[in-house]
């Protein structure tokens, strides 16, 4: 069940330039969150910025802590970055659908930048479900950025294949290169791919998976006014029929890669 909750800031951790982890005491929402669920955060009481901002749940604890990862890109995220312990913000959540973790035996988890948040939560859940084989492929602009984003996987016993735009860590190039290299070893029967990152990355992954016949889910981002399927603002075009729109906050944020009309998402 979704709720509106006053969440108290426990700590805010800088993970590098413009990158933060925000740890909130938000027991009601934390107690119900699932992989790729998201929250709407009101970042200030002022009327500008006006709307809540959506963030994926990164991690929760049984003590009611809820963590998000965020990058400062504008006023709303700048406001978040100035929060201090014991400040309070309003959160609504958990919202959206989630990754489908039930059907598969093996997973390749693909993350770009802060897109690692829902992927990490999925990884923890898969590990908790027991025994499935997991590979993580993660990319970012630089190693300095990628390292703190992927540090959580090793303690789970999950290896990461890394790619950076500047070659400062892992493969010098795109995370999709890593996927292509691996493709020969992947069993379309057993393996599922879960992916979250910039739209061009997800579109490329979707294309690769379609060609290879691999089951693939993506977690999308669009502009959201409400997050609760009231404004009808968060649409993406569905595949096949240009007139059918999907609502990311309700039908998503997770979609089967084949459901999406990627062309319109990239313009």
């Amino acid at each position: 069940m979704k709720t509106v909750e006053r969440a108290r800031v426990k700590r805010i951790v800088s993970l590098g330039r413009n990158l933060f982890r925000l740890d909130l005491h938000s027991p009601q929402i934390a107690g119900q969150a699932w992989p790729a669920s998201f929250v709407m955060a009101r970042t200030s009481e002022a009327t500008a910025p006006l709307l809540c901002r959506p963030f994926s749940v990164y991690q929760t604890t049984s003590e009611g802590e809820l963590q998000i990862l965020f990058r400062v890109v504008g006023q709303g995220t700048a406001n978040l970055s100035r929060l201090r312990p014991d400040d309070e913000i309003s959160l609504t959540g958990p919202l959206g659908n989630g990754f489908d973790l039930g059907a598969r035996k093996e997973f390749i988890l693909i993350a770009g930048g802060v897109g690692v948040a829902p992927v990490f939560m999925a990884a923890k859940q898969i590990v908790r479900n027991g025994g499935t084989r997991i590979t993580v492929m993660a990319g970012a602009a630089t190693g300095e950025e990628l390292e703190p984003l992927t540090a959580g996987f090793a303690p789970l016993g999950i290896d990461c294949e890394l790619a950076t735009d500047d070659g400062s860590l892992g493969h010098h190039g795109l995370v999709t290169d890593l996927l292509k290299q691996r493709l020969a070893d992947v069993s379309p029967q057993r393996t599922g791919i879960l992916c979250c990152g910039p739209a061009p990355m997800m579109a490329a992954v979707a294309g690769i998976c379609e060609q290879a016949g691999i089951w693939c889910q993506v977690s999308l981002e669009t502009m959201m006014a409400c997050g609760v399927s009231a404004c009808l603002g968060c649409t993406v075009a569905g595949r096949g029929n240009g007139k059918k729109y999907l609502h990311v906050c309700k039908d998503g944020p997770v979609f089967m890669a084949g459901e999406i009309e990627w062309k319109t998402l990239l313009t």
Partner: protein
Amino acid sequence: MENAPDLKTAIAGMTLRNPVMTASGTFGYGEEFAELTNLHRLGAIVTKGISLAPRPGNPPPRVVETASGLLNAIGLENVGVQAFIDAKLPFLKNCGTRVIANILGDRVEEYGELCAILSGVEGVDAIEVNISCPNVKQGGIAFGTDPEAVAAVTKTCKKNSKLPIIIKLSPNVTDITVTARAAEEAGADAISLINTITAMAIDAEKRRPRLANVIGGLSGPAIKPVALRMVWQAAAAVRIPVIGIGGIMTADDALEFIIAGAAAVQVGTASFVNPRAAEEIAAGISAYLERHGLDSVAALRGSLRL
């Protein structure tokens, strides 16, 4: 004061628990907010606009934030009147508050048909008529900017329905009192205003409109001063009740509209920012009345001291 102040509000033959409704298109069909706020504490729920046939709406992007405002071009996406009755109304019937169906059309006759259909079903307490849509027979000029079209739509709705008819005025006019009076003279039971103000945003880097539809409707706190002025003017111009809408975020905002002459208010964009906004505003109005020693909200209406 011994008793809690009386928030009951009589509008267009209905009595509402309190004067705070949700605005069309900002509260879905009620169900979306059921887990987040106490629906039975609202004066009424106004539904997302309903047309005869389902509409897919505009291509994305559909929303963009502006300074203290929200610009939208949803394109009136809705499930259509039949799916509304089958899939949405059953929940609304039992949600514990009044239900006002908001309708829209491209032609005058569509409004009539919608009124006839919705009058025939149980669970709809009143009809709010969105006239900010393009009138296809008149070259796409919005009904709401032409007093004759306003009168024509109002008459058709009244003829086809026994339910109270609320005409929702467009702010994109030179003189709001002209369309307000046109609605009143044509028989409207109440008017509500304002709908969104036509507006635009451009991505300078891409040199493209931020909305796929190029232009959209501006809502939120940015437009409140304009809405308040129009409500004040309209309330002075007509005798039927006026429902104030536009940028209401807090109880104080709502009180401004009531003091200006509104019999009730609608909370729109605020529900996105705080899903409990409407409920909290109703409570805030009650607290204000108590603090000011007023025993009813009716005593406050139009009490502006010039």
